[in-house]
């Protein structure tokens, strides 16, 4: 029997249409808009001004605080403006807009494709380099990686877990990275292991990617202390806490971080970015984005410069098909529908999915019949029907007691609800309110 996490979970149709498409480098756009807040935490401070010439990989916004990330230019050209630009949610947020001129990279970046295995840096030096390169969690949560690597005093990391699960339907960017950048991934893992001072790394991959499992298992034999584990297909196994439970059978306590049970989880994309940052001095300014959809002309995986307009990425995959009802940023379970395709690709854009109008429409919500399906599928053991009601009634203190802060917003409850209730909509709202209350109490 294959391993998986123990409570809840759903198995939506996989629809990994673009799994066979090799990563294609997207041509340079004419203009990029790079938001200064692409990560969880404080927005970065812009360090360039209008009219400045920038090169690819040049620092354009400086990390602002412990939980924050540097932002680098993804193109070479002239800074056209530093103004609010519409982001994927439609709100206008500050961004640095750069007009592209040529493709001149910063001299410090090693552009060769040769593998560089040897890494003689100390743990502190690695973490500093990861921080400088502005690396954030590439799975979509965009948590600054150097924070995750800095193990707090009194805690000890025992195992590094590499997340190659990609449990979201449709998305294939991690899958392609594992197939095409297996060696870089392994070196990245070795570097992460060194930074965390751990001896073992476990790569978790769902069993619907047998080619990635066999490829990585074979590559891993060359490196010490890296194990590849096939996992049963079950959403949301890519959640940190679910993956830890599946791989090492430890449960992260409520409100605690994975380090509490000696685990640190990083995405495969992050590990490759760490390799590039540490070995090639290449900051994070491009990422693999899956562009897919059942009626899209050519579902593809593109290597996209951060800040490229989403419209151009979709155009490269055949353009927005007629009868498109919704384009989702991220996976179909956790992603959010875009309000405009003019918004830019950011560090957290793992996929763009076009849904035909008939699939995009939500079904009409009916009354809750107390069937309890949401409770049985919740991977965190919460009671979504109750949290939904409490949030509607604004009973936020009660929600806190019901552990709403443990909700990982995976959407399994909404997916499974036979009454089509917008459970997660309200739970997410309540979670944000409770978060505010808790922070106010601490302050």
């Amino acid at each position, binding site marked *: 029997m294959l391993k998986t996490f123990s409570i809840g979970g759903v198995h939506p149709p996989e629809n990994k249409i673009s799994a066979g498409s090799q990563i294609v480098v997207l041509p340079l756009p004419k203009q990029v808009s790079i938001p200064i807040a692409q990560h969880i935490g404080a927005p970065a401070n812009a360090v360039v001004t209008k009219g400045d010439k920038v090169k690819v990989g040049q620092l354009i916004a400086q990390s602002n605080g412990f939980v924050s990330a540097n932002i680098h230019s993804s193109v070479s050209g002239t800074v056209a403006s530093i103004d609010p630009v519409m982001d994927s*949610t*439609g709100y206008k947020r500050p961004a640095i807009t750069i007009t592209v001129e040529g493709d001149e990279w910063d001299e410090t970046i090693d552009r060769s494709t040769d593998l560089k295995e040897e890494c003689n840096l100390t743990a502190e030096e690695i973490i500093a380099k990861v921080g400088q390169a502005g690396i954030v969690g590439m799975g979509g949560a965009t948590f600054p990686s150097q924070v995750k690597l800095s193990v707090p005093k009194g805690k000890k990391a025992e195992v590094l877990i590499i997340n190659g699960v990609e449990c979201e339907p449709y998305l294939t960017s991690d899958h392609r990275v594992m197939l095409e950048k297996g060696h870089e991934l392994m070196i990245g893992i070795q570097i992460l292991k060194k930074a965390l001072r751990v001896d073992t790394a476990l790569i978790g991959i769902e069993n619907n990617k047998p080619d990635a499992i066999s490829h990585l298992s074979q590559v891993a034999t060359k490196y010490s202390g890296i194990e590849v584990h096939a996992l049963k297909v079950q959403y949301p196994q890519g959640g940190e806490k679910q993956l830890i439970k599946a791989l090492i059978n430890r449960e992260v306590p409520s409100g605690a971080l994975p380090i509490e049970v000696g685990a640190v989880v990083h995405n495969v994309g992050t590990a490759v970015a760490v390799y590039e940052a540490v070995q090639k001095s290449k900051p994070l300014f491009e990422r693999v984005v899956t562009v897919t959809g059942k009626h899209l002309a050519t579902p593809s995986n593109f290597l996209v410069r951060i800040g490229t307009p989403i419209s151009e990425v979709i155009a490269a995959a055949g353009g927005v098909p007629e009868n498109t009802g919704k384009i989702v940023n991220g996976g179909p379970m956790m992603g*959010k529908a875009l309000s*405009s395709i003019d918004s830019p690709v950011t560090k957290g854009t793992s996929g763009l999915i076009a849904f035909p109008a008939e699939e995009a429409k*939500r079904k009409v919500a009916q009354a809750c019949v107390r069937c309890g399906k949401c409770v049985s599928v919740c991977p965190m053991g919460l009671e979504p029907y109750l949290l939904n009601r409490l949030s509607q009634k604004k009973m936020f203190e009660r929600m806190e007691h019901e552990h709403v802060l443990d909700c990982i917003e995976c959407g399994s409850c909404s997916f499974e609800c036979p009454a089509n209730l917008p459970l997660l*909509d*309200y739970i997410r*709202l309540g979670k*944000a309110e409770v978060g505010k209350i808790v922070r106010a109490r601490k302050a």
Partner: protein
Amino acid sequence: MSSVVLYTVLMLSALGVISAVVLYFVAQKFKVYEDPRIDEVEAILPGANCGGCGYPGCRGFAEAFVKADDISTLFCPVGGNETMGNAAKVLGKEAAAVDPMVAVVRCAGTPEHRAKTNAYDGAKSCRVASSLYSGDTGCQFGCLGLGDCVDVCNFDAIYIDEVTGLPVVDQDKCTACGACVKACPKFIIELRKKGPKGKRIFVSCVNKDKGGVAKRSCSVACIGCGKCVKTCPHDAITLENNLAYIDFNKCKLCRKCVEVCPTTAIWEVHFPARKPKVEDETAQPVSEN
């Protein structure tokens, strides 16, 4: 047989007397003095328990009111000056008259002025919608029209107009409790002075975008041109973040700003019709606000 009845009656009577005595002394011992004026004040208050005064219900307000040395900071918006005058009489004090207020919706983005750019079919709640995205038009500041303000109104004073998709306040029913102001995630609703005979002037827009951007997303948006600021003879208008704001305490209702506003973002309500002019009168929105 009769003796059983007799003993029962005696026994119960004795128990009753003993309990009464015990209860009397206990009640004396643990007596909590409560100012009787609190009850009197509470009886005068409207009893809506809306929280508009900032206290938990009318009882909470009555307690604070009786306890307070200075009652000028306390006001029941629902009861208004009359109720406050009566309540102050209970304490033998005088309540200062406060100008009546009313909720004002500061968005005029009807579908005709503000084209829909996308469709939302999530939970029918403004709070949820605004936590997910900016809204179904190009304006990220504008009204979402899903009616959170209607849901919280205890006085049936606000409804969503089916044609415009915007909330409309019934000024006769509105008590200025402020529940809708707090409920609106876009901060569109504001409590403003009701004005003499309901006459008031306000900027019916909260768009902070630069002029061109604002104008593109909504044809009646405030573009921050500053004409009204220059025109106002009473210094009542300020311009901040590309948005004009009229201070209702300074505004003398001269209507000069309304005339110069190029996008008709400044509204005048309950004024008599102007003398016929060349200008198109239909451009001026008629509203209950």
